[in-house]
């Protein structure tokens, strides 16, 4: 029933096809997508709905009997379309009986697409959690486990507990993985038929298992089992990667795809630690322009010949690592990067004398992450904090690579169509666009474009004050923690109370976000704070026009803009959204500096709204540049991985 993914997109070693092969592969993608057109999915859904009558009169016991029969068919891999229709129909009935929700036809469509191994694009608030239960149950029946990958621990737990009755009725066990769980609990959770987990946890567990296997001589586990080795088997927590359903597939599989997950240990190299401190002092005596050049667009620092020379002069007579010219320059460049590019409260914050990375994309704190190759140490040295010893990598894998290891993969997200090509070429996933249950009546207010940052914030505050006066709830999306705090200060001066979301605890975040729809509420959130949580409108709010979303900056991808806007006007509610941006936003500075400075020159210093076709072009240009650059980077990562595999084929197949 389910088509296997194309060879190039499965397994860690598949190569992304290029040239003519690439064209051919794209062609295959078009054909694969044809199987999942709206009409086809509707046809299947009709067949499912036709069975509704048959099951809604059955007793629970009789239903269980039916389920048992189906389960056998799926387990044996002899399922037919007929079985699928029955399975979906029964699952609707079970959902209705167990949690009181009857999946809508569009949810059946989505479930069908996921079960066929595709990415289902469903608007936010369409009930993706419930949708996922249907393909997950089918996967559970197959008996090889199914990982439902969510974006945070809170959601994993919430969804698992919420949907558990359905699975239990279907004879399946559910587990979830949470940060801080012990190996025994994890093992139990992975052993369940369906496991709710986050991408980070599942990937980290995979790496830890691999390390364990590596210490046993690098034999694949099946070989180990054949040889009768019991030692590692007892300590492994996972039982293999068979199927994954990835929630928010675009952010997990694309935006975060190249972030490697690293398991490391401390090296305790004190000599290097000292060197970082020296470097931080050293670069203070270098002058910008003469000794080094800063490229904000590429986020890069370059030593000039003059600078290299000066360094040599300054460190003459120093011992250790300073004697090696290459290392000396490297240390200096790291220190300069820390000084010039990496800004406090922008790329990182200092929390309890520790540097904590702020995720560029989500604006979220990443307390357990470190920059690589000494950059982290350089930043610590710059902040005069205790320099931690560089960590030694033990194992590492990028999410991209990790998810390609799954035998079958599916996903769901609110925004996928912008990334159809990438989903197909890298993961072999076609995209199925599922229509909303009720037509969307979101109003897109035209963009407001201002020349300066200052004018932008003033405008946003005015806008919020206006809406707040009539009691309409407002959600403002910012990109960085710094700007969200800045805005909250401004609002406080105006006497407007607001909620700021940039914390780490997902559960509270979710609660605040879900309250964002109440009357008179003003919420400031970094981009993805509280994703996956519904914003329900408070009483009287729909009459005022529903939730209004303000994007304080355009994001690097239109996809993420859409995610933010998708927070209002869910499920047929009223709602509106608007982007209020300035030419000084980072997006323009980084990706369209020339055109934006031209536009700035054209309009001069003004507080007027300068939105025009020209500024729309500017946004489109900057976003497409950013997208292209990011895609190229992701492809480069895959290629780099392959190159390493070729080079290191002798070293460690087990990563």
């Amino acid at each position, binding site marked *: 029933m389910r088509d296997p993914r194309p060879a190039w997109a499965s397994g860690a*070693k598949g190569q992304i096809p290029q040239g003519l092969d690439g064209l051919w592969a794209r062609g295959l993608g078009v054909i694969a997508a044809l199987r999942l057109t709206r009409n086809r999915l509707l046809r299947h859904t009709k067949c499912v709905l036709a069975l509704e009558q048959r099951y809604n009169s059955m007793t629970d016991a009789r239903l269980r009997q039916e389920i048992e029969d189906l389960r056998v068919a799926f387990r044996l891999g002899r399922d037919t379309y007929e079985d699928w229709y029955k399975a979906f129909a029964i699952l609707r009935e079970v959902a209705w009986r167990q949690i009181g929700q009857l999946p809508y036809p569009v949810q059946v469509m989505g479930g069908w697409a996921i079960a066929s191994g595709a990415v289902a694009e469903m608007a936010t608030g369409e009930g993706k959690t419930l949708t996922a239960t249907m393909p997950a149950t089918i996967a559970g029946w197959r008996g090889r486990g199914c990982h439902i990958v969510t974006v945070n621990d809170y959601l994993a737990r919430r969804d698992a507990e919420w949907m558990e009755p359905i699975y239990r009725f279907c004879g399946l066990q559910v587990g979830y993985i949470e940060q801080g769980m012990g190996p025994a609990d994890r093992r139990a959770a992975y052993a369940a038929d369906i496991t709710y987990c986050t991408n980070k946890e599942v990937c980290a567990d995979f790496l830890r298992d691999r390390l364990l296997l590596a210490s046993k*001589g*690098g*034999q694949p586990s099946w070989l180990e089992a054949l040889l009768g080795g019991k030692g590692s088997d007892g300590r492994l927590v996972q039982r293999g990667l068979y199927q994954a359903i990835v929630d928010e597939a675009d952010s997990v599989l694309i935006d975060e795809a190249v972030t*490697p997950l690293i398991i490391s240990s401390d090296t305790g190299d004190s000599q290097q630690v000292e060197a970082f401190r020296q470097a931080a002092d050293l670069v203070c005596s270098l002058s910008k322009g003469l000794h080094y050049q800063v*490229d904000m*667009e*590429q986020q*890069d*620092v*370059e*030593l000039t010949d003059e600078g290299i020379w000066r360094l040599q002069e300054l460190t003459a007579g120093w011992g250790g690592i300073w*004697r*090696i*010219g*290459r*290392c000396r*320059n*490297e240390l200096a*460049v790291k220190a300069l990067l820390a000084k010039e590019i990496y800004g406090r409260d922008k790329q990182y914050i200092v929390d309890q004398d520790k540097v904590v990375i702020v995720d560029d994309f989500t604006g979220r704190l990443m307390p357990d992450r470190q920059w*690589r*190759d*000494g950059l982290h140490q350089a930043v610590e040295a710059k902040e005069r904090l205790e320099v931690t010893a560089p960590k*030694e*990598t*033990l*194992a*590492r894998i990028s999410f991209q690579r990790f998810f390609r290891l799954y035998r079958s993969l599916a996903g769901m997200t609110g925004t996928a169509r912008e990334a159809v090509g990438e989903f197909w070429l890298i993961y072999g996933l076609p995209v199925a666009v599922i229509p909303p249950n009720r037509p969307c009546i979101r109003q897109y207010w035209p963009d407001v474009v201002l020349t300066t940052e200052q004018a932008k914030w003033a405008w946003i505050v005015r806008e919020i004050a206006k809406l707040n006066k009539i009691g309409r709830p407002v959600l403002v999306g910012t990109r960085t923690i710094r700007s969200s705090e800045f805005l909250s200060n401004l609002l406080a001066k105006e006497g407007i109370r607001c909620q700021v979301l940039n914390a780490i605890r997902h559960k509270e975040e979710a609660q605040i976000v879900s309250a964002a729809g109440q009357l008179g509420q003003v919420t400031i959130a970094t981009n993805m704070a509280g994703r996956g949580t519904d914003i329900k409108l408070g009483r009287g709010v729909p009459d005022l026009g529903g939730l209004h979303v303000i994007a304080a900056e355009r994001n690097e991808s239109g996809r993420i803009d859409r995610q933010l806007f998708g927070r209002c006007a869910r499920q047929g509610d009223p709602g509106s959204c608007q982007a209020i941006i300035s030419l000084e936003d980072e997006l323009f500075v980084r990706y369209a500096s020339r055109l934006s400075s031209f536009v700035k020159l054209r309009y001069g210093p003004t507080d007027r709204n300068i939105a025009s076709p020209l500024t729309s072009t500017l946004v489109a240009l900057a976003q497409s540049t950013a997208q292209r*650059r990011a895609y*190229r980077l992701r492809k*480069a990562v895959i290629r780099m991985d392959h190159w*390493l*595999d*070729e*080079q*290191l*084929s*002798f*070293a*460690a*197949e087990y*990563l």
Partner: protein
Amino acid sequence: MPLERPTFHEAWYRVADLKARLSTMVRVSRQTYRGQVWYVLENVSSNEYFRLNRGAYWFVALLDGRRTVAQAWELCNQRLADEAPTQGEAIQILGMLYANGLLYAEVPPDTQVLFKRYKQRISRQVQGTLMSLLYLKVPLLDPDPILERWTPIVGRLFTPLGLVAWLILVSIGLWTAVGEMAELVASSREVLSFPNLPLLYLAVVVAKVIHEFSHAFACKWFGRANPSGGQVHSMGVMFLVFVPVPYVDTSSAWVFRNRWHRAVVGMAGVLAELAIASTAAVTWVHLSPGVFKAVCYNLMFVASASTILFNGNPLLRFDAYYVLSDLLEIPNLGQRANAYLGYLVRRYLWAIRPIESVAYSASEAVWLIFYGISSFVYRVYIFIRIILFMNSRLPQGLWFIIPVMAASGLAGWVLVPAGRFIKYLLTSGELAKRRAWAIVSSLSMICAILVLIGLVRVSDPWPIDGIIEPNRQAVVYTLADGFVQEYLPSGLDVQPTEGVIVRAVNPQLESQKGQLYAQLRRLQVQRQIAQTEEVALVQILDEQIQAVEEQIQRVETDLANLELRPPVPGTWISPDIDKIRGLYLQRGQQIGQVASLDDLVVRATAGQDVAAMIVQQADRTVQIRPRGYPQYLLEGNLAQIWPAGLTSLPSAAMGMRAGGKIPVRPDDPNGIVAAERVFQVLIEPVGQWPQVLRPGHRVVVRIYMRPKPLIARWWTRALQVFQKRFQI
């Protein structure tokens, strides 16, 4: 990170704890190239070679199976500082060594990758074979035993004495060939004709067999002084442009210590071929026409042409290239030269940083630049020449080879590199910061070239053959019969008003004149009588008188015509005049010409292809270059074009039979009737011409067509090549 060689590598953890060592199959030799120390690792079992620099070799040498890779790397860093390989480089070195079976590590082999690599290797081989079907090699036998037996004897050729003998032989050959140059060139017309092809192929095989064996013997001979022994174990057939020719694998010579030994092994084939060519030349001269003579000619043609144009020329990647590369101590000279030119552009035009120079020293850089440019120019030149040569010599039936060759050349040298370049421009990571500038500069370069060849009009000279003729010229015929009595010697200037060229006498006419006058007188007397006596008779007599007077008139004219006067002013030319003294010449016989030797014109012929252009767009002023007098560059004006299309040439010298360019009809014994209609163009000189130029002298007339872009010019010429070929 903008670092040229980042110290750390993210995948280092995968190799750090590995305990590896070099395989026992490795033999290491230390070599110095241009003052740099390199270590050449030889895989004895597979006959493959790898070159490591000092840092890399140190690192590899520290791997003894007990230290971990990380420890070895640390040690290296402590000792060598900057010279030590970075983590990334170390990974690369290990990967390369392992992939080629030179590294032994105690890990279970990754079977999946092994199989994948095997598959890749096979598919790469298949690809390589398909791509280089032009150079397919099929090994057939192991020639070592035969060589072993004969080397002691044949090898003596590679001694100083052998060199002297070779020099003598080649000098004789060269002497002979220069002496017979004209005939050699003339015979080359037939080289690619159908009947000759089997002989040509035979010559190729003979020459190549000797060529290859010469390599093999040299390798064995010099191998005696080297520990590797100069093994030669592979011999077979190579399909050079689908034509099977023999080859021998003498790669074991690469590890000879003495580089002059390596050079001689590399050049042995060329030396042998030159010897063959010389021998064949000497034999060819002394043979009477026949099959054997033809064989000799072909042998000489193959051995010399292939040597001068290909094998002996280091600008193409054949024998001499490898020798040059070795002697210069610049391995991969060709690739590195191209890479270096690319590096120059990337570094200085596009200012890409970080970038590492391809050249290790300044002198090497000079060589690379020089070689890169000259080899490219030569390659393009020789390719076009070969195509043109084949176009003019190949029989109609084999003509299809030419478009195939041209297309493959176009694909290989233009389309593929262009595609690669575009891809590089659009996707290369190193261009990230400079992409816009790189694209703009490349585009403007291309635009500049396009404008240059597509828009800028340049003068378009067409050379056509011509012959010098006097402007005025009259043939002198005898006008009456008579005995030559007096004449002017040839070469004198004459004017029509004065002087007699030839004076003849005719006694018969004289006496006839006397008779007629007597008769006239008689008739006049009779008439006087009749006037008085018989009036009726007068009328009859009048008629008779008139008739006689007419006769007298005719005889008088004939007599006057016995004195021949020049019809036009000019020089009296009659080389054989001395032979007519006292002869009786009949009326209408040609005895010489009068021509204006100081008033010359050029009569040129043009094929139909050019004539239309001359009529439509030629500039009136033309340039004239007399053949054999390169010092003169004369000017002329187009005076007249006879567009009617004649088949007779102004002179046999312009026909192909006499060395001209215009094909003549094979059935015309004089070689003066053109095979196709030709146009005649008359050119008047401007200014005074040098005295040495006489009528009959051949010249090349350059007619300047309307200035047009180069592309239009190339297009017309290409069309004409086609038209000629297909007689359109």
